[in-house]
């Protein structure tokens, strides 16, 4: 991958993760892809709920694990993918990714499994349980900005994520 930059943050609980995602939303535009990674229970769907609410999704955002793709109408349409059950990138042919990725914002949980068919220009969001003695609901969030389009948003994103910021 070409140039990248990193922003690091921590949240105290699920509400905090939703709020942080909400602060990312104003920086998004058509065609943006966010790849979410993190263990089970780390808060990937939670992050998407916060992002969707801030984009103006009024429907309930639920886990797309079984349907693989959920689409929500909003100011910017939101495509929510969970590709955990896809083992072979060829199987993404069923999803018609090029059309999905063209309009609106696409959030991909477990996106590393289909890395080859996702654009290099993307934001990555890694959610991790806190290793220390903090509250079990606390999460470490590491956001990677990859490619010129995302790097151009680095300063503005850093400013809006300041309430949760920690050194990387």
């Amino acid at each position: 991958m070409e140039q990248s930059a990193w922003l690091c943050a921590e949240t105290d609980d699920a509400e905090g993760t939703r709020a942080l995602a909400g602060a990312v939303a104003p920086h998004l535009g058509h065609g943006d892809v966010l790849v979410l990674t993190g263990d089970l229970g780390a808060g990937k769907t939670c992050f998407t709920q916060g992002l969707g609410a801030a984009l103006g999704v009024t429907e309930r955002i639920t886990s797309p694990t079984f349907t693989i793709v959920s689409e929500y109408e909003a100011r910017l349409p939101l495509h929510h993918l969970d590709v955990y059950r896809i083992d072979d990138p060829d199987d993404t042919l069923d999803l018609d990714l090029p059309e999905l990725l063209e309009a609106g914002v696409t959030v991909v949980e477990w996106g590393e499994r289909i890395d080859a068919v996702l654009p290099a220009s993307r934001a990555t969001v890694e959610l991790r349980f806190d290793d220390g003695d903090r509250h079990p609901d606390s999460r470490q969030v590491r956001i990677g900005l990859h490619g010129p389009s995302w790097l151009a948003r680095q300063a503005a994103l850093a400013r809006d994520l300041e309430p949760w910021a920690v050194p990387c």
Partner: protein
Amino acid sequence: MDMTTTTDAGPTPSTITTTILAIETSCDETSAAVVRAERPVGGPVTGAPPRIEVLSNVVSSQVARHAEFGGVVPEVASRAHLEMLEPVVGQALADAGLAVTGLGFDGTGRRPAVDAVAATRGPGLIGALLVGVSSAKALSLAWDVPYVGVNHMEGHLFATFLERPDIGLPLVVLLVSGGHTMIVKVDEPGRYRILGSTVDDAAGEAFDKVARYLGLGYPGGPIIDALSADGDPAAIRFPRGMLDDGLDFSFSGMKTAVINYVRRHPEATNPDLAASFQEAVVDVLVTKVLRAAKRHRAAAVALGGGVAANSRLRQRFAQAAAEAGLDHLVPSRAYCTDNAAMIGAAAHWRLAHDGATGLDAGADPSLRLATT
């Protein structure tokens, strides 16, 4: 409507017997079934559920055990459904005594004696749905019979009527599977109201994810069910998500609670974790469906969906319904998990009520249950 039918003896037949081939490919299972039922001719479609005779009901996971089909177990890919569809449909027709060579595409013009072809058109995986929908449409054109597109969730509701067409109405059904968790009030066939649903994960998904976290394998539901027999359901008091909060469900936090517990108590045993987690999920499911029945003055309650195969849920649900004095159905496991017989049952009612579905109606991965 141009249909091959058999009718009641007598000068003025009042019912018409309709035989339907139904196809279900919304998720992991490729399934085909042949169902037969009588419906009134000319008169109004009554509110009473139809009495459906299931002539065959073939699910790929059963067929796949036979080497002749290559042992393919469909995953998420439509290509797996494509491979399984023809043998599964062929088997369903053969089991019903309706088989013709090559599904009628052998040039002889012979075709099976079915009056309509139905398929699940949503909700589900788009690629998987398209296999069933396209095949059903092709067969309906080739055989010159109507096509009926069916809502998968309405199919699950009709699974109740397959076994209990006489069940009390209004009926409250708890539909729980890997992809869905909802409570539906059924005033009569075709008249539904969603009383509650999950705000995050489906119940079956929570089972799968906890099993995955504990390294137990897939699918998680049956594994946790079996493991729980050796564990203490009261060993760990996991939170009951939204227990006191209306008729909606939340299972994501319960899943995370298990993960947090294991991180802090690595000594916890899998049987105790499984039994305690299962108990928490079943507590919420049973409490809410009984609450819904009481609040909406239901005459009966029923379970549906793959998670309804869970033995602890079946036991606790039957006990709670009996204590509340409610007519209830704990369906056969074969009608809980995805199957085409229930799609055929819903198709029969839809055909009688709405007529054929246009061939221009495509698959819809996020198809909603039409509610009143």
